[in-house]
């Protein structure tokens, strides 16, 4: 494995100067006629961070990325890279580079010339150019393929060359637009690992766009869940998964069981006492600023439910198995409560014989309940 290239950043001064965030977006808007593709984005991406933007199609994540790259002009707002306002700069002048979904390798140039493209534009001297290209091809494990044309490479190989082509320029920020979208599952997983490794070795800030929640969670330090041109929630994968701020976020980042609940008492510190049909009263954590008698939604993740008795720190229901699905790494059970609502439970192994029609006493820890404001429309939009 080659040594990681020297700290990214060109000019170097920008990086070492201050703790300026790698990217700062201020009041970013973009409309196409009446449609607001990006509807007010304010975010700071830290230096060296692996930052992902995820969301359903049309949420504005790709448009935002292209605005950072300079390929789309914002209708309003400001874009800063390490404190420098780049909003008015054309793409070729910005210290950022992009890896595209379709790789966009130049078909009339071989691998070496593709990777060397940006360096040639900068009139890099021949010796240095050759060294840097070799270094980068080594990093992405494509050494020996310099003479190949893009059409002779597989999808995964093309993606690695595209990555090398951008990284060789030592951008201050690397933008990736669903780069693994066109690859099969196994290859995607491999490349996710490689991308993560490379990002950590090289230390460049990655801004990653994907519609695949698992992919984003696997690689990112922080994720931004986007919807209708706005960021709905921004945080570490753990925070977003365990404490989603809306039903939309809860549904987008994973399956969840949603129980309509009523707030009985506000206990302070984001703790509440609530009541739900079939479950009774319970105490749990939730989003801030819920009020008494508010119609809320309690969510419990399928993996938090197990066949166990209710105790002081647990609550639960009795339900009947309606459907079982063996997925390989887990067993997904669908159960029906007396009220008629359905519950989804996922088991790692089958400790107890589960069969359709069996009645089970289920329970989960109070800690695993999370209260949200009700938002049926949001929940539907995420599915």
């Amino acid at each position, binding site marked *: 494995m080659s040594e990681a290239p020297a700290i990214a950043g060109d000019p170097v001064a920008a990086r070492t100067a201050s703790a300026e965030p790698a990217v700062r977006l201020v009041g970013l808007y973009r409309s196409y006629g009446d449609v607001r593709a990006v509807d007010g984005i304010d975010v700071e991406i830290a230096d060296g961070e692996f930052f992902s933007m995820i969301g359903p199609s049309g949420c504005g994540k790709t448009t935002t990325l292209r605005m950072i*790259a*300079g*390929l789309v002009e914002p209708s309003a707002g400001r874009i800063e890279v390490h404190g420098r306002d780049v909003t008015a700069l*054309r*793409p*070729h002048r910005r210290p*950022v*580079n*992009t890896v*595209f979904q*379709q790789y*966009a390798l*130049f*078909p*009339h140039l071989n691998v070496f010339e593709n990777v060397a*493209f*940006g360096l040639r*534009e*900068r009139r890099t001297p021949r010796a240095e150019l050759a060294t840097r290209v070799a270094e980068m091809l080594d990093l992405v494990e494509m050494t020996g393929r310099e003479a190949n*044309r893009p*059409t*002779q490479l597989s999808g995964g190989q093309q993606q690695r060359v595209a990555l090398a*082509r*951008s990284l060789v*320029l030592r951008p201050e920020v690397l933008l990736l637009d669903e780069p693994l979208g066109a690859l099969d599952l196994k290859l995607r997983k491999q490349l996710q690992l490689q991308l993560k490794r490379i990002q950590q070795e090289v230390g460049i800030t990655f801004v990653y766009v994907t519609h695949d929640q698992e992919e984003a969670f696997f690689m990112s330090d922080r994720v931004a869940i986007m919807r209708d041109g706005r960021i709905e929630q921004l945080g570490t994968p753990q925070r977003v998964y365990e404490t989603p701020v809306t039903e939309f976020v809860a549904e987008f980042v994973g399956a969840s069981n949603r129980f309509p609940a009523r707030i009985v008492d506000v206990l302070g510190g984001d703790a509440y006492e609530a009541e739900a049909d079939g479950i009774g009263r319970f105490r749990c954590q939730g989003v801030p600023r819920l009020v008494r008698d508010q119609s809320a939604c309690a969510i419990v993740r399928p993996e938090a439910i197990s066949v166990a008795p209710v105790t002081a720190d647990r609550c639960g229901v009795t339900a009947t198995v309606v459907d079982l699905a063996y997925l390989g790494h887990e067993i997904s059970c669908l159960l029906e409560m007396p009220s008629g609502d359905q519950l989804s439970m996922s088991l790692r192994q089958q400790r107890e014989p589960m069969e359709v029609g069996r009645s089970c006493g289920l329970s989960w820890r109070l800690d695993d309940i999370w209260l949200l404001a009700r938002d049926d429309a949001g929940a539907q939009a995420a599915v």
Partner: protein
Amino acid sequence: MKLRLPRPTSVFTGIVMICLYLPIIAVVVYSLDKSADLIGWTGFTTHWYSVAFHDPEVRRDLLTSLEVASASTVISLTIAVCAGLWTRGASPRARRIFDGLTYSRIVLPEIVFALGLLILFSKLHIGYGVWAIVAGHVVFNSAYATIIIQARLASLSSTLEEAAADLGANRWRVFRRITFPLLVPAVLVAALLAISFSFDDVIVSQFLGGTSAEPISVLLLGMIRLHVTPEVNAIGTALMLITLVSFSTAGLITVLRPTGAGHLLALGRRAAE
């Protein structure tokens, strides 16, 4: 074994093909025939080709044709590339108007605009000659070239140019390093087409040639009026060959673009993996 009669459509097609190609075959055959009378086959000879080759008029006019063809091709291609790049970013309305102007140059009968140019040049006191013919050829050659270039540009992904810009190339560099190299196959095809059309053209060449410029196509027309010697057949066959080779090369390029034979080899290799 039962003898099956050919289908009526096959018979009809066969007859049409024979009618179309018989005259052409006749020209080729009689260019190689010893006798000057177009009656029967008297023996093989390349004498008439030699006569044509040594004929000073033929040589001068062939040169004129080449001059006209190259000039009109270069100008037409420049117009076509600029037009193609412009229409990509133009509004739909502007595009519609421009396409109308392009197609009208193809659809309009040549004699109409040849006459129009004749009158125009006369009014503007522009002399007839090589450059007047070039202007006339550019009228239709630029239209064909524009369509070919536009088609190729449409098939190029804009992401490639975005990637080039992203990597540090300004608009001119993007054109020079990415757009134009990828356009080259289309440019070659358009060039070969334009050269062929220029060589074959008679109407514009006659109207605008005046007394000084006579492309070989006009010379042929004149020679036929006087007497059909085998020399005419020889020149005709030679011109046909030039056109045939041009079109075939254009066809090959279309199949083998953008990276030439390497593309086919690569496909074969990947299929084998």
